[in-house]
């Protein structure tokens, strides 16, 4: 399938899934499930950071206008995108990345995915809840929200890959 078409469809699907499904799941304690960072993470490794930032901005924007969060998701997604190349470099294998392969859990292996995506998602969640709370004397509360939300978001991101991303055919 044409790559641009594939990613455009994914873009719309991610916004709708976040706005119509995940935003409606309220588990209490301020826990929020977020899946959209996965979209940015799965974009090709050699995509220019300039394009990534612009895509991230519009993705966050689309989610924000659906959830009355006024720029909260946009800001945290920009942080996520900005840190992505740094973390990819940090955790890269000896011979770098194959630019043809998508960085999903099947291609890169469980351990790599948990380490890289996990730490990026942690930064994203931390920034998100810090901005949402907007005061530092509630740092404990911010951490609780982050620590409770992070594994659940992560689990959903893995689940989505098992459901919708094509597994590489065994050679």
């Amino acid at each position, binding site marked *: 399938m044409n790559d641009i078409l594939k990613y455009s469809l994914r873009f719309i699907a991610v916004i709708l899934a976040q*706005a*119509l499904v995940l*935003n*409606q799941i*309220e*588990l*209490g*304690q*301020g*826990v*929020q499930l977020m899946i959209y960072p996965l979209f940015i993470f799965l974009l090709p490794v050699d995509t220019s*950071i*300039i394009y990534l*930032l*612009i895509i*991230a*901005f519009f993705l*966050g924007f689309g989610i*924000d*206008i*659906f*959830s*009355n*969060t*006024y*720029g*909260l998701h*946009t*800001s945290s997604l*920009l*942080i996520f995108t*900005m840190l992505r190349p740094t973390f990819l470099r940090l955790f890269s294998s000896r011979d770098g990345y194959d630019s043809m392969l998508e960085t999903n859990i099947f291609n890169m292996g469980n351990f790599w995915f948990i380490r890289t995506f996990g730490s990026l998602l942690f930064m994203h969640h931390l920034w998100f809840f810090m*901005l*949402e*709370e*907007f005061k530092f004397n509630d740092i404990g*509360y911010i951490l609780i*929200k982050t620590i409770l939300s992070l594994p659940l978001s992560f689990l959903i991101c893995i689940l989505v890959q098992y459901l919708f991303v094509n597994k590489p055919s065994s050679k």
Partner: protein
Amino acid sequence: MRNFIAFIRHFRVILLFALLQGIALTWYTTFVQFPRSQYLTTASSIQGSVLSVRNSLTKHFSLSENNKILQAENILLHKTLPHSFIKLENGLTKINDTLHRLQYEYTPAVVINSTYSKANNYITINTGSKQGIKRGMGVFSSEGIVGVIHNVSPHFSVIKSCLTEKLNTAIMLEETGQDGFLAWNGPDARTGLMTGVSNDSKIKEKARIVTRGGAGIFPRGLPVGIVDKYEVIEGESLWNITFKFAVDFRSLQNVYIIKNLLLDEQKKIEALTEGNE
């Protein structure tokens, strides 16, 4: 000039990041307090219609509970109708009441999107400026107050619910008339805070908290909640009162918007008084 272009080329990623992040943060910090346009929220017609479709699919999930609430309200209203009263004396004629005049009108609306566990919670309803809704009007359900209209478009509105940091609605203890302000800072959608009550007054547990009126947004005496706990704030002579909300924000479906017919008159005379000082 060449240096400047080289500088921009060198730092273009950081600059773009700072620019986009700046837009997002400006949007966040300005809109949370004072929304200026409806287009970037769920009050906009596109987002509103998408959420309406979703609501038409999911509204049945809490139908039985909402039916019960509506039924209870119907019974209450039936009690006030003439056919529920027995005629005690024949020959009395009804004349037009000149002592009482209608001050508040209510517009019904259906909740199509709502949150209750975020730091600031908003509710989208399917009624907008075409039905006469304006920013700043109060909203309540049959159980108690819900919030204040925050943002309006022709067919949809966004309510700032009681579950936001600063709603600043005046409330009071029904029995003693001690007044304070409504606040909320917890993750729990069931409990709220009442601030500004001085601790030389006695408070009964399970005392009812109602709206104070006064600002012209809510009529006096709409239920807000029931006192749950109270403790002294350290170093201040104020009570910190925790109460249970009368409304269950987690299953809110039908709300009413309050239109105060005498609000203009009240505003006018208040402005006149301030001008004279």
